[in-house]
């Protein structure tokens, strides 16, 4: 009884022989295999081609001299990798993205958690505010970068930031071109916050809704302050959600491209980015410079970095604690 009940849906093979006479047994169910194959084949072929074949090919290219061609050219061993590791531009793009990540991850995390907690505690207007924060998530980085560059932070006195600054008597700033102090960071970081905070806020809201209310009621009876409740109930109960969200923010930060590309591109089509994140570097090398060998090697180095940082983050955040 419990045998068929617990294993019900996967039990075709484990079902005692003779229960369904003849039709099923330990013999291969060719109809099931046929249906399974038909249903999974498109996905398997697609992933096989666009992930496995693509990455395998690119891996071979990363050891080849491949300029202006995607054919596997002459084998150069680790030359492409060595070239990149010695290349000042590539190294600074890697350190740049690490600094950017170190800043954007905690800020995005804190803001989305903060907004979620505030929204969760609201009696009225929650749906309205939730939509207000979520709606920017539907906007593309291209549009957002354009608005930030041409409206909010343009260097003109009529720009929104300069107009507001003017109310406080500040000088007109050329936000994007200003590297000393590096005001361009304000532009880059606020774009990303505007686009992403609402998304993660929704995830936190979902997590908050799963926390049993009676925990808070019990804590209130014991006279625990709001802060104590947040620290000792909310944060621990949101642990899994938090780890997942941290990872999502982290990976998204390493893949920054759209806003850097669009904010720093000039009328001539060249980038003036003081910080060129790895994807922008790779785009310039592989697509504009047509050097697919070095581009492929760079893609693998970036992938390696992302995997390392993700593992490290899992270690740091996941240490101790039961579970």
């Amino acid at each position, binding site marked *: 009884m419990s045998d068929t009940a617990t294993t019900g849906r996967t039990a075709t093979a484990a079902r005692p022989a003779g229960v369904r006479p003849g039709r099923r047994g330990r013999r291969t169910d060719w109809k099931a295999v046929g*249906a399974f194959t038909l249903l999974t084949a498109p996905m398997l072929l697609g992933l096989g081609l666009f992930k496995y074949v*693509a990455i395998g090919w690119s891996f071979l290219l990363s050891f080849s001299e491949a300029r202006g061609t995607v054919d596997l050219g002459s084998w150069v061993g680790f030359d492409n990798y060595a070239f990149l590791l010695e290349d000042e531009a590539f190294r600074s793009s890697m350190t740049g993205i690490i600094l950017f990540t170190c800043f954007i991850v905690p800020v995005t995390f804190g803001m989305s958690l903060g907004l979620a907690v*505030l929204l969760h505690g609201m009696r009225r207007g929650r749906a309205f505010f939730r939509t207000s*924060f979520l709606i920017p998530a539907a906007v593309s980085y*291209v*549009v957002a970068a354009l608005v930030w560059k041409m409206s909010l932070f343009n260097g003109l006195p009529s720009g929104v930031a300069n107009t507001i600054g003017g109310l406080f008597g500040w000088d007109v700033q050329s936000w994007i071109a200003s590297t000393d102090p590096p005001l361009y960071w304000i532009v880059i970081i606020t774009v990303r916050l505007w686009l992403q905070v*609402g998304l993660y806020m929704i995830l936190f809201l979902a997590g908050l809704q799963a926390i049993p209310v009676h925990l808070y009621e019990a804590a209130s009876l014991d006279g625990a302050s709001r802060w104590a409740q947040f620290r000792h109930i909310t944060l621990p109960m949101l642990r899994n959600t938090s780890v997942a969200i941290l990872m999502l923010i982290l990976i998204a930060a390493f893949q920054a491209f759209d806003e850097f590309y669009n904010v720093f591109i000039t009328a001539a089509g060249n980038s003036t980015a003081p910080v060129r994140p790895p994807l922008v570097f790779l*785009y310039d090398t592989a697509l504009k410079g047509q050097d697919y060998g070095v581009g492929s090697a760079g893609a693998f180095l970036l992938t390696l970095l992302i995997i390392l940082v993700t593992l490290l983050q899992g270690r740091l955040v996941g240490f101790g604690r039961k579970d």
Partner: protein
Amino acid sequence: MRKTTRRTPVTILTYLVVGFAAVLFLAPFYFVLRAALMTGTQITDPDWHWLPDPFTLQGFTDLFDDPSVPMANALGNSFVIAIVTAPVSTLLGSMAGYALARISVPGRGVVMSFIVVTLMIPTSATFVPTFVLVSAMGGVDTLWGVIAPGLFNAFSVLLFRNFYLKFPQEIEEAGRLDGLGHLGVYWRLALPNSGAMLASLGTLSFIESWNAFLWPLVIGQDPESWTAQIALSTFLTSQSINLPALFAGAVVTILPLVAVFLFAQRYIVQGIAASGMKD
């Protein structure tokens, strides 16, 4: 009574903070719309104008008249891409997810790991490999070159698999009694009963493909194959920037999506919550 008086200052503060944040989050939409309806000289006028005066649709006409940026064609391309990608990628995910959840065959675990492994590769780091492959297959400057790599999403397979694991056994058995095979049960019963999942993942996929930038930029080098995002980005680099047209471009690029978004928000919230919680 005492409870409400104690809560009031905190509540007021909460509303102040959240309200201020909401104004900050909504303000950029106002700035875009304002600039799109102004004249170029008014946008750069140092004196602040809260509303366009006079209102003008010149930006929108200029946008579609500019011969160097085929905006109408680009919007059409984006629409085709999103309208193909969303249903096809969702359907493929549901098919594979159903098979992995409900059809027991030898080697199912291997198939599952084959799919899951692709999740560990950060997607954007693969644009060089994918370009190498798609260009070798002749996909540069074609719409299928933009569409094809986005159709196969291991993440949606996983979400659908989890969803179908919970699909009621009774429905399936009833279908069996009526003489349906595995494919029949999937097509006639499981798929039609996956409405919320299809809607949420379909909408997310629509948004993602509409907003995609890096891949269309990489693969579409000919203006004929540009998407709306690429056209807009090119506008930024054109020799003399027509500001009202630029902002009008932003408006027409945002508008369809915000409409879809507001309409399907419920599903998106479900979908985001589901995909985020699934770590």
